[in-house]
């Protein structure tokens, strides 16, 4: 099993957010560049939104990875839902102010003023739809005071759009929307990921028909594609060990792609 041809490709599609696994796709690269340039502008807030699995978290991690080399950037990928904790953790991580007492918003702004950073620190908040309205209001006030620049990600649903409108409509902010990939983009994503890891023979197995099937099943969603391909290569590992004669090495079997889709719940059978 260890020497399986398919175990490496399988592990590549584990749904883990790692900026080193970031794959350049034309449309996403374009969005990333505009996000990077937005961060340099004197905007108070930047909103990154899209449906779950469109790559928001990955972009945020990539931004953190790239900017942290020369700028004060702080990543909060797990939301701090407790309002008292939020300001305390922020003060501790950004301004190295540790206190066990509750920090009020006024106190927090004073701490920020005392720190007197030449560049406004950037805070990246993932899954911001989990923050309460009152906490969002605090975030808005902090960004208004220009002591911190926030880049936040939101899931795109009707409810969250209302939150976004309420809190950011009157602010100087930029919103960037991420969308699902097309079949052509998905093909580039899958092949680049495989080629990056030297899985040339498996990359060669993907033909246009296979990609179209994957794209139609996952609707171009990166997370769903990762899940589907992880299951697919798990299936290939099983067949390689138990029934290798069934494997065709020139193309992927549509039947097995559909079986993987059944396993991941993309097909209800």
């Amino acid at each position, binding site marked *: 099993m260890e020497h399986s041809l398919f175990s490496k490709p399988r592990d590549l599609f584990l749904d883990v957010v790692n900026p080193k696994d970031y794959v350049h796709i034309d449309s996403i690269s374009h969005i990333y560049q505009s996000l990077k340039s937005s961060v340099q502008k004197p905007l108070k807030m930047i909103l990154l939104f899209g449906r779950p699995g469109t790559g928001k978290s990955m972009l945020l991690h990539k931004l953190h990875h790239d900017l942290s080399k020369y700028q004060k950037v702080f990543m909060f990928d797990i939301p701090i839902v407790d309002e008292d904790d939020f300001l305390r953790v922020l003060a501790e991580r950004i301004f190295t102010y540790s206190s066990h007492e509750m920090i009020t918003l006024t106190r927090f702004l004073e701490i920020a003023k005392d720190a007197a950073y030449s560049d406004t620190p950037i805070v990246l908040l993932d899954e911001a739809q989990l923050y309460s309205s009152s906490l969002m209001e605090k975030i808005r006030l902090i960004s208004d005071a220009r002591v911190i620049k926030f880049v936040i990600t939101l899931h795109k649903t009707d409810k969250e759009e209302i939150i976004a409108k309420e809190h950011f409509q009157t602010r100087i902010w930029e919103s960037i929307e991420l969308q699902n990939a097309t079949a052509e983009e998905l093909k580039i994503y899958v092949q680049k990921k495989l080629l990056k890891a030297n899985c040339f023979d498996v*990359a*060669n197995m993907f033909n246009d028909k296979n990609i179209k099937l994957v794209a139609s099943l996952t609707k171009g969603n990166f997370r769903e594609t990762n899940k589907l391909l992880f299951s697919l290569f798990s299936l290939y590992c099983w067949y390689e060990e138990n029934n290798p004669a069934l494997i065709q090495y020139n193309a992927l079997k549509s*039947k097995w792609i559909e079986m993987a889709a059944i396993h991941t719940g993309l097909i209800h059978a």
Partner: protein
Amino acid sequence: MLNIQNLERRWLKYKIKSYSPYILGVVALLTLLIAVAFSKNDIQREPKETALSPSNPTPEASSTLLEPSMDFIRSFQTAAPSNEPPKATLQKNAQPVREPLPIPKLVTIPPPDLSDEKSFSLNRNESKLDIETLERRFKETSNANLGLFIARYHYDHGNYSEAYNFALKTNSISNKIEESWIIFAKSLVKLGRAEQAKKTLQFYITDSNSEAARALLDTIERGTFK
């Protein structure tokens, strides 16, 4: 943990379910065809009965058969005048269409096509950079599978001389990759060297007995290769 037997069963169920509308459609169509065929048979039988009826000595039967059809003809005649004008216009319309006139000239497609190509070339520039890095990696690693990938990429993008070069390199690294030989021969045909492509394929077929190569040779010899 994967339960392959269970997955296979669920997949079969899913396939039957997904094909069932088509199967039902085909069955419905067949029953409709059969019904039409039977009704035609019935219509053909009916005139026989009427033909037989005059020879029958009973005159009551023949009168009952004729009466309804007379009504139908009458109703048809009353409806006829309203139907006549459209028929005439149709015939009038049909005649000028036969003359070879300006319709083909009006179909001018080029402008949208050109804009499409422009936007496409932008995307290609990005992917061109990628293929260059892959080519560099191929130079370093001499991996036959990567060579095949690049050859296939170039062939798909219409760069036949590049496809030829990379297929050739791939073949020299490993001469057992069928697809690489196929791309090599196809590129040769596209480059106008069909004879060399045939010779290469013949040589490869004697060596490997490849069915795909034989099929390709066939299409080249018949001149049906596109």
